[in-house]
């Protein structure tokens, strides 16, 4: 201790410590008033340190490549939103101020969902931007479709060609011949509105090969098709998926799950594989695939039988009265009656029963049930794809999982699971076109009246049956030939010009579907396009802004106005928003079709709307709080979003269903027998147009406005009853009364359904460093993951005589593929698994050389064969790293060998396959694939026969229940069933 530091000997002239503290406070207030950060984050903690936002215009770092010399690099940091999965995490692009090139991507600390963190896929955006094989100009095929010969064309030529074709389809009343098929969605509702403005019902999504099974279960309960688990505040986290390490929303959820674990939360994971997520679980359950709903019901039965459920929540919010009235009409309509019935309903789902179905120990299920019971209302649950996408009846998995939340009152409370629409904000855009007056039966066939999403993966079969043809088919950031089951049927369709008149691939990168296109139109990556996103990642609402970062950087540097993103993107790469606006403009140049008005600048009549006007309007008018936050910094709302990339609208939304309905909305009300309240008041406009269900009016045309709960009119849920629908009158009325309450449907891969010697193949699991079909242009990700061996338990390996160095032939219903085995105890005996990411291929020179093997494709009639000609090898390019490629393997494209398995209710493709696994034949080679597409069509027909078509079961003459969500909803009148048509010829089933 030195004398001058002692309190009593401090210089009398030196300020006191209190005075110093006041000076610091004053400096902090002044700094923060300018919107700057006073206390920077602790830089010693990795990932918690970010350049302070006030330095984003000119950030200095030492150039790592110049080491050991100290060379300073100056960057402008520009936010955007990652496009490499659905999570929409924030990115910060480091734009070199000298060269105006992006040097790297890191996390955006201003983003409320991802909070500055990213997974491997985010920084790999740089690989995609600098990919030496990327498509930089619009291309038009030069030879036959699929021949692999291309010529460059101008955007003008392509746009005029397309516009003329689409205009002709509209004018000639062939609107259903225009279809847009989307993989990774961009901005919520943007393209749906484009299609609506054209008057076509042409939206087709990938969702039925992805999440529609999971969505169906949630939708039946809440009228909202996604969950929003509040993992961070949970006491118990129950996952039927691999969300902690791989699924949606991997990064935002993983960080919150880890926070919860640090606070003592227990994690339960159901996954037949030992996934990365399962390795972090407190309880890992490896059930027989398809038995998950039985396990959930056994837990539910335990909660009910031991009276551990939240009685008051169940009484207030379940539609138990409707259930009693419909199913127990002789019983008194009291809650006590319902409780007694409830005890009986699930009594058969004992732990022993679940154990028999799942192969787990009954004591293990009982132990987990106790953990769940102890969670109270702090139970966050989640399933997405996984079992819900694998099994016949998989939609009951999410339904029975959410049943646990509904029993415990863990719905829209801290630590529970919210309906996603309450934690999501979709700002109302400048124009909302009317519903189209047409119904497209190629996407919404009558056999699937309850499907929430388009029957996208059946398209080749529906076209094959002459149910329609396509004149213009857009595949957009989607690769159905590779992603969907039965890819050879897709190739057959795409190469038949009588069935598909023109195929336009909107893609930032080469893919197997684009090889069969007429036009390839290059669209920008995550740092080269505009979108607004909002996703449910905690109990709050935020929007994230994806933007072309060089456009924002140039504007910031010199005030240079950019009115077309092609001016800053590489080559002639465009972005979709400007593309769709321009295409729509050209379809209706004179405005006669009524399309142009949706794309006309309000400030410059007669000229096309710009993206700045589009987003300027949105941010000015439809994002509460944003104009005020921007004004504090002297910015326009658009400038604020360009600078920070994200805005949090609300935190702590809470239980919206408990919100009282304002008195001015209760006009000439009517209340039905079960408390549903209807009103004649106009529905107030909301700036948030988040999708959810739209229950219909009462018999007198009043709209549903709320529900009576304990004497109060509260908002409730967007279901017909306004309550949580334990009992679904929709399922009962539309031909499936046996599934009107949450239940268990035995999967198509149930143990009893397998023939002697068959095993189950799990094919859906992701690798956390892969981007579905878009990793091939990301060299870092390719290096990390480039093969997909077959997970095989050593017991099975021994039984089948398969060793680690053997090749394996996996036989499906329609063909086989040859793959390497990985003998591992991380998979349940009797089950094999193979990741879907791998096996990329190209036919010739065009393609992604860093990840695609070159193959020979042969077919004769319905028999198809693929054989690998060359694996991967180093190559010379603009990127010196391509000379350093050290791996040759790219995995095997297994999806080609899968037939379609549409669930008759949800429409979800049921991915799990019953397969035979054996040692490969001597002539087999790694990567060989053989498929019979005639067999594939027979399997399709067999599953189609499971349906109960609307024409047979519709209770009201509609094609489907109007209240159900539908991505692009046609006008009300076209919901009516069409007049009966002559019976379609039967498809032969051998």
């Amino acid at each position, binding site marked *: 201790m030195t004398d001058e530091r002692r309190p009593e000997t401090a210089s009398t002239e030196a300020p006191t410590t209190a005075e110093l503290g006041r000076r610091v406070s004053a400096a902090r207030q002044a700094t923060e008033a300018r919107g700057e950060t*006073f206390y920077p984050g602790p830089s010693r903690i990795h990932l918690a340190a970010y350049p302070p936002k006030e330095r984003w215009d000119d950030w200095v770092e030492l150039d790592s490549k110049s080491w050991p010399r100290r060379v300073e690099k100056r960057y402008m940091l520009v936010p955007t939103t990652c496009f490499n999965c659905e999570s929409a995490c924030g990115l910060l692009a480091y734009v070199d101020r000298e060269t105006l090139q992006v040097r790297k991507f890191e996390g955006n600390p201003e983003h409320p969902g991802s909070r500055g963190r990213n997974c491997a896929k985010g920084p790999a955006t740089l690989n995609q931007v600098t990919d030496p094989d990327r498509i930089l100009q619009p291309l038009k095929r030069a030879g036959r479709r699929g021949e692999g010969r291309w010529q460059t064309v101008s955007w003008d030529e392509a746009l005029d060609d397309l516009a003329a074709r689409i205009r002709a389809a509209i004018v000639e009343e062939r609107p259903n011949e225009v279809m847009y098929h989307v993989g990774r969605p961009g901005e919520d509702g943007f393209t749906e509105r484009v299609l609506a403005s054209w008057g076509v019902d042409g939206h087709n999504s990938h969702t039925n090969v992805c999440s529609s099974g999971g969505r169906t279960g949630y939708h039946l309960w809440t009228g909202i098709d996604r969950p929003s688990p509040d993992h961070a505040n949970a006491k118990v986290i129950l996952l039927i998926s691999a969300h902690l390490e791989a699924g949606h929303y991997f990064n935002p959820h993983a960080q919150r799950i880890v926070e919860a674990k640090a606070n003592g939360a227990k994690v339960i994971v159901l996954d037949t594989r030992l996934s990365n997520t399962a390795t972090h679980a407190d309880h890992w359950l490896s059930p027989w695939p398809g038995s998950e709903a039985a396990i959930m019901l056994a837990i539910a039965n335990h909660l009910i039988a031991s009276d551990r459920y939240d009685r008051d929540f169940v009484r207030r919010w379940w539609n138990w009265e409707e259930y009693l009235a419909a199913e127990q009409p002789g019983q008194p309509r009291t809650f006590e009656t319902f409780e007694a019935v409830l005890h009986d309903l699930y009594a058969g789902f004992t732990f022993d029963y679940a154990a028999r179905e799942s192969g787990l120990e009954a004591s293990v299920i009982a132990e987990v049930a106790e953990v769940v019971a102890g969670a109270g209302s702090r139970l966050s649950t989640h399933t997405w794809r996984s079992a819900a996408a694998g099994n016949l009846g998989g939609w009951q998995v999410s339904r029975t999982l959410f049943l646990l939340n509904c029993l415990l009152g863990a719905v829209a409370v801290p630590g529970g699971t919210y309906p996603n629409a309450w934690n999501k904000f979709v700002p109302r855009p400048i124009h909302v076109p009317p519903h189209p007056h047409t119904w497209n039966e190629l996407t919404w066939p009558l056999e699937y009246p309850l499907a929430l999403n388009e029957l996208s993966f059946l398209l080749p079969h529906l076209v094959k049956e002459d149910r329609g043809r396509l004149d213009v088919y857009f595949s957009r950031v989607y690769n159905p030939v590779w992603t969907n089951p039965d890819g050879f049927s897709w190739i057959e369709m795409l190469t038949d010009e009588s069935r598909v008149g023109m195929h336009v691939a909107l893609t930032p990168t080469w893919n197997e579907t684009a090889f069969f296109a007429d036009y390839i139109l290059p669209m920008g990556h995550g740092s080269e396009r505009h979108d607004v996103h909002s996703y449910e990642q905690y109990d709050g609402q935020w929007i994230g802004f994806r933007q072309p970062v060089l456009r924002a950087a140039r504007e910031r540097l010199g005030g240079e106005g950019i009115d077309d993103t092609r001016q800053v993107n590489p080559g002639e790469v465009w972005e979709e928003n400007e593309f769709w606006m321009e295409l729509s403009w050209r379809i209706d140049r004179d405005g006669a079709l009524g399309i142009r008005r949706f794309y006309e600048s309000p400030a410059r009549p007669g000229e096309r709307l710009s993206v700045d006007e589009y987003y300027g309007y949105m941010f000015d008018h439809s994002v509460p709080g944003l104009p005020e936050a921007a004004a504090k910094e002297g910015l326009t709302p658009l400038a604020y979003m360009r600078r920070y990339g994200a805005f949090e609208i609300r935190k702590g939304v809470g239980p919206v269903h408990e919100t009282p309905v304002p008195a001015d909305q209760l006009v000439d009300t009517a209340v039905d027998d079960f408390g549903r309240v209807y009103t004649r008041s106009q529905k107030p406009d909301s700036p948030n147009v988040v999708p959810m269900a739209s229950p219909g009016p009462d018999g007198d045309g009043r709209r549903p406005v709320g529900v009576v709960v304990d004497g109060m009119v509260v908002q409730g849920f967007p279901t017909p009853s306004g309550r949580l629908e334990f009992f679904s009158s929709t399922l009962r009325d539309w031909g499936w009364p046996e599934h009107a309450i949450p239940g268990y449907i035995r999967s198509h891969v149930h143990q009893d359904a397998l023939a002697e010697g068959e095993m189950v193949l799990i094919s859906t699991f992701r690798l956390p460093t892969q981007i579905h079909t878009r990793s091939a242009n990301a060299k870092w990700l390719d290096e990390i993951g480039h093969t997909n061996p077959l997970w095989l338990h050593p017991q099975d390996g021994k039984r089948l005589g398969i060793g680690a160095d053997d090749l394996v032939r996996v036989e499906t219903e329609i063909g086989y593929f040859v793959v390497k085995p990985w003998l591992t105890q991380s998979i349940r005996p009797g089950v094999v698994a193979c990741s879907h990411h791998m096996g990329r291929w190209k036919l010739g020179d065009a393609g992604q050389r860093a990840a695609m093997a070159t193959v020979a494709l042969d077919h004769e009639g319905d028999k198809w064969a693929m054989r690998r000609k060359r694996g991967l090898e180093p190559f010379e390019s603009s990127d010196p790293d391509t000379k350093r490629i050290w791996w040759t393997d790219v995995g095997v494209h297994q999806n080609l060998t899968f037939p379609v398995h549409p669930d008759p209710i949800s429409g979800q493709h049921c991915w799990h396959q019953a397969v035979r696994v054996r040692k490969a034949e001597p002539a087999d080679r790694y990567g060989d694939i053989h498929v019979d597409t005639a067999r594939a069509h027979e399997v399709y027909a067999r599953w189609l026969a499971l349906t109960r078509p609307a024409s047979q079961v519709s209770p009201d003459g509609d094609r489907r229940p109007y209240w159900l969500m539908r991505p692009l909803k046609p006008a009300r009148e076209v919901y009516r069933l069409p007049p009966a048509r002559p019976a379609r010829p039967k498809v032969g089933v051998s």
Partner: protein
Amino acid sequence: MSVATAPSEATTGSGPAVSPRAELFRALGALCETPVPGHERIAQALGLPGRPDPAEHAAVFLFQSYPYASVHLGPQGMLGGEARDRVAGFWRALGLVPPAEPDHLTALLGLYASLIEAELAERDAARLVLRREARRALLWEHLLSWVVPYLAKLGEIAGPYHQAWAGLLERALLEEATELTSADRLSLHLRTAPPLPQTDASADEWLVAMLAPVRSGMFLVRGDLASAASDLGLALRMGERAYALRALFQQDAPSTIAWLSGEAETWIARHRTAEPFLGQIALFWRSRAEATAAALRDPWLSRPRSGDGLGRAAGG
């Protein structure tokens, strides 16, 4: 999120209370971090001379004088261990999630600032007592138990900027010590700290103990070993401190012992000056330094012993 500001959000229910004293501790804590542009504003407000310099920061905090409680209170003189767990337990007892490095000085000062604010914001009399006791516990258990001699050493090796920072922090802490008088019992860290090893301990044990402040009563940094090598005309072997000290012994044990004895005497005097302010804490530190000085006078240390490099070198 900054560790320096997180606790205030976590511990005040109705928004952070404004307290110049809390602000002072938070600001001083922030400056313990690697300098970033924003630090200049903080330093100016505190009237520190010069500007924060990343190179000096690295020299002081990363290579010489590590700002972690566990380094100075743990029996190994290293990061982590029971000392860090004890600090983390304190965070948990407050209902907070311990940060990644709960015993870093920035974290501790940020937490202290938040406890001041929480106390100011508290309206319930009973809870007010609890909050004050929490603040007192943090001050006497986890800060004053090591920070004052730590700052004394830091002031010796640092430039004017960090000297002024250290002086200001010490002054602020001692003002707190005056206001929040000590509990009767010595800090648990100090009560449970083992003394120097027995004379039959191995050379490695002995070297480690010498370099663990809580055992030897001395805060020896790399610079001290370099100075000793230079003053004694010995070669300095680059490596961890124990390795370098062993090398000095192997080259010239008597001179090294004499140098260490001098260090111990210096620390005895230093700790004595703090006794009026720190009471039994300073007494503890002085007693440890005195025990070290006594051990260094014991001829056992110089005797050749088989089985360890130290003894052989001392004999040779």
